[in-house]
């Protein structure tokens, strides 16, 4: 009997103080030397601020896109071959359509869980692009892109472009009437490029529009090539983030030389995993209750037919709006045409906007002559110039977005299309121009406010029986990090007060 106990004890002893886990880690370390890096990684500090979750939303909606997308590929058939539909959706029975469209209708009505997966995929895409844009805005307005993080700003902007492109490609795959019209417009935009436009268009579409090869090509791009590039760039983005460490807002012992917050393990892991689940949950609920892209109502694509509600996904809105309000100036002469009415709003304008975004960190450095390393974030109101530039840009894009529904606006306000068009042309110029000084002014006003940026706690005002008023500040919010405590390095071990009282907190281990 005691023998058994002794061998057990001996075994435990041989394993060392951390048991089987410790032993496995030792074996791993013998081979890869991961102990130090692993420890550093688990102690990595994440600053606590809600705005740091925006990048996480983007990341998690991308994961959801991957998972739901794989499900869709199991049923979607990327083919322009014509079939006659005889499926479970009666209104389309007997209609001729491409296999791409037929298989998407099947996914929506015949495949178990198919409609949910389609709608989740679409919603996750909208959330993905939206989260990227808002994340980018937070990086911009807080100056997180400054040295040393310019490279990550460029990686991020590239990700935004790729997300938009992949969204458009995916939107086009079902080959329905609305998305087919979108492809037609994209083809015409490519055609508009001087000198090489027709060649580019023919190379991309394998000939004249529409041809039969564009759906299979978009499929490869949408499901393989672009996602691979996105995965590569997201990895680079996160690698840079870990290497350069997070930025943080100033205050409470935070300096340029440290990071204050919660450690990766276990606190951040818990919060972020939970957050992944929440993003997944919201996407699933949207997929369940908010219909999106009901292609069976639009019908199959037919180049000679058109639906009345032609509207791209929201992130393409600014392009559509620009195309609507730009005047019909076209150049024609010497046997050539330059379609400025398309070229400028749909090629030059987005080109300028994205180039401006890419080089903004260099522009700002040029003006401020600031070549220092920055790890502490700006409060937007403290940098009125940058904030005003950002608001100007956003309001410009916002006006273009609104301009993409001139027809809806005309109907809604019951005015002529002409009025709406002229109004939108003026507003697209005037609103951003006004936004600049107004934002600048507001920033200055905020700077003079007392206690700006600090979390406020309400004062409880009470009246005594004698009619005397007293104001007592209410306790701090539960989730506020206590400001009276000094930040400590993440402890490796925690000792019980009773057994090791009075120790300084450093333990020396002989290995």
């Amino acid at each position, binding site marked *: 009997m005691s023998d058994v106990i002794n061998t057990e004890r001996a075994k435990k002893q041989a394993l060392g103080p951390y048991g089987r886990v410790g032993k496995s880690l030792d074996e791993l370390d013998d081979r890869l030397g991961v102990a130090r890096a692993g420890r550093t990684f688990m102690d990595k500090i994440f600053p606590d601020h809600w705005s740091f979750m925006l990048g996480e939303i983007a990341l998690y909606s991308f994961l959801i896109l991957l998972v739901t997308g794989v499900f869709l590929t199991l049923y979607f058939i990327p083919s322009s071959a014509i079939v006659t539909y005889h499926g479970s959706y009666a209104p389309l029975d007997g209609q001729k359509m491409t296999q791409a469209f037929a298989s998407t209708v099947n996914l929506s009505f015949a495949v178990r869980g198919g409609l949910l997966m389609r709608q989740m995929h679409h919603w996750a895409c909208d959330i993905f692009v939206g989260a990227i844009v808002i994340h980018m805005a937070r990086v911009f307005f807080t100056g997180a892109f400054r040295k040393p993080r310019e490279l990550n700003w460029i990686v991020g902007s590239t990700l935004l472009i790729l997300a938009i492109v992949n969204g458009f490609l995916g939107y086009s795959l079902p080959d329905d009437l609305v998305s087919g019209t979108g492809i037609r417009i994209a083809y015409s935009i490519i*055609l508009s490029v001087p000198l090489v436009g027709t060649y580019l268009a023919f190379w991309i579409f394998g000939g004249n529009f529409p041809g039969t090869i564009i759906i299979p090509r978009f499929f490869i791009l949408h499901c393989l090539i672009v996602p691979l590039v996105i995965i590569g760039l997201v990895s680079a983005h996160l690698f840079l983030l870990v290497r350069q460490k997070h930025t943080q807002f100033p205050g409470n012992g935070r300096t340029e030389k440290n990071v204050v917050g919660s450690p990766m393990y276990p606190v951040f892991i818990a919060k972020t995993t939970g957050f992944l689940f929440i993003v997944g949950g919201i996407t699933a609920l949207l997929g369940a209750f908010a219909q999106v892209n009901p292609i069976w109502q639009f019908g199959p694509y037919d180049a000679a037919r058109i639906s009345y509600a032609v509207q791209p996904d929201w992130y393409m809105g600014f392009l*559509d709006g620009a195309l609507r309000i730009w005047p019909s100036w076209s150049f024609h002469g010497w046997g050539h045409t330059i379609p400025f009415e398309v070229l400028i709003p749909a090629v030059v304008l987005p080109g300028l906007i994205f180039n401006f975004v890419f080089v903004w960190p260099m522009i700002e450095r040029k003006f401020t002559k600031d070549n220092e390393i920055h790890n502490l974030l700006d409060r937007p109101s403290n940098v009125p110039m940058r904030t005003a530039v950002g608001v100007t840009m956003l309001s410009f894009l916002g006006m273009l977005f609104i301009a993409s529904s001139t027809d809806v606006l005309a109907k809604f306000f019951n005015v002529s299309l002409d009025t709406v068009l002229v109004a939108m042309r003026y507003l697209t110029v005037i609103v951003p121009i006004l936004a600049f000084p107004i934002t600048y002014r507001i920033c200055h006003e905020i700077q003079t406010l007392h206690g700006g940026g600090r979390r406020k706690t309400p004062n409880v005002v009470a009246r005594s029986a004698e009619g005397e008023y007293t104001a007592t500040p209410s306790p701090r919010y539960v989730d506020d990090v206590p400001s009276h405590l000094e930040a400590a390095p993440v402890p490796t071990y925690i000792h019980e007060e009773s057994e090791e009282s009075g120790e300084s907190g450093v333990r020396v281990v002989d290995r």
Partner: protein
Amino acid sequence: MTDEHRTPVSLSGLSSNDPRLQPAARNPELVERVISVCFIVGTLCLAGFGACYWIDAQPWKLGATLGGGLMFLGIGIVAWGKYLMPRGPFVEERHTLANSDADRQAFAAAIVERGGSVVQRRKLLGGLLGGGMGIFGVVVMFPLLRSLGPLPKRTLQHTDWRSGSYVVDQSGRRVEVGDLAVGSIETVFPEGTENSDRGQAVDQTVLIRVSNEAFTTMKGRETWAPHGYVAYSKVCTHLGCPVGLYEQELQLLVCPCHQSMFNVTNGAVPQFGPAPRPLPQLPLYVDSSGFLRSQSDYHQAVGPGFWERS
């Protein structure tokens, strides 16, 4: 094991009643109970999702159970991390990423002096290799571009309408002079293309009967619209959407994409919107048996603009 592994390492510790290790929650027991409920409900929802899938329930039930399950688990995990784990704050030092000047110089020297001097000394080899790589870069495009698709040639300049093409509707039926009432509109194709991709995308034409007699939309087009049949390319000159809406009272063709409007009685000149050019008009005639036919192809390229469009 190397010696380095045996050197003592100092591990920093904190006493268990250090305030930084306390949970943020004022009432941890209550929070724990709430989280347990979240986990239980979440697990039940996810089991429900499995059951719903099994019995092939409606999509919204699948989504509600899946979404609910993920939400409850997620909220529970976040609350655990936020309220029950050490509230901190904890700190980590930042180390400057920049290396010492000596390291930087060694790196730069390796590139500029060691590598650079090798190339400097063998300019000929460098040039030859550069030329070879350049040629490789160019020829590698050949198979790629050729496989991507044909060259445009002049295919964008003309359609399949020929002199004498029969005008047919979507089902392939030839249009006769008595077929349309004044004020009605029909999408038509040159016979034989009504089911082809190219026919749909390029040849599509709107046929509108604006009156009972020959109609002149513009000077020089006196014979183009016999018996009041006017035909325009249906491909919008802005971005190629089908110009599908006909406002009969105003005699306007409207493109639903960006609301370009073309005047039907006046050579389809754009009256509103971003379209830069009129829709090309197709010259028609009525043959001896009363069928509508085209005199020729369109006189200009149809659809949106492109560089080679003359």
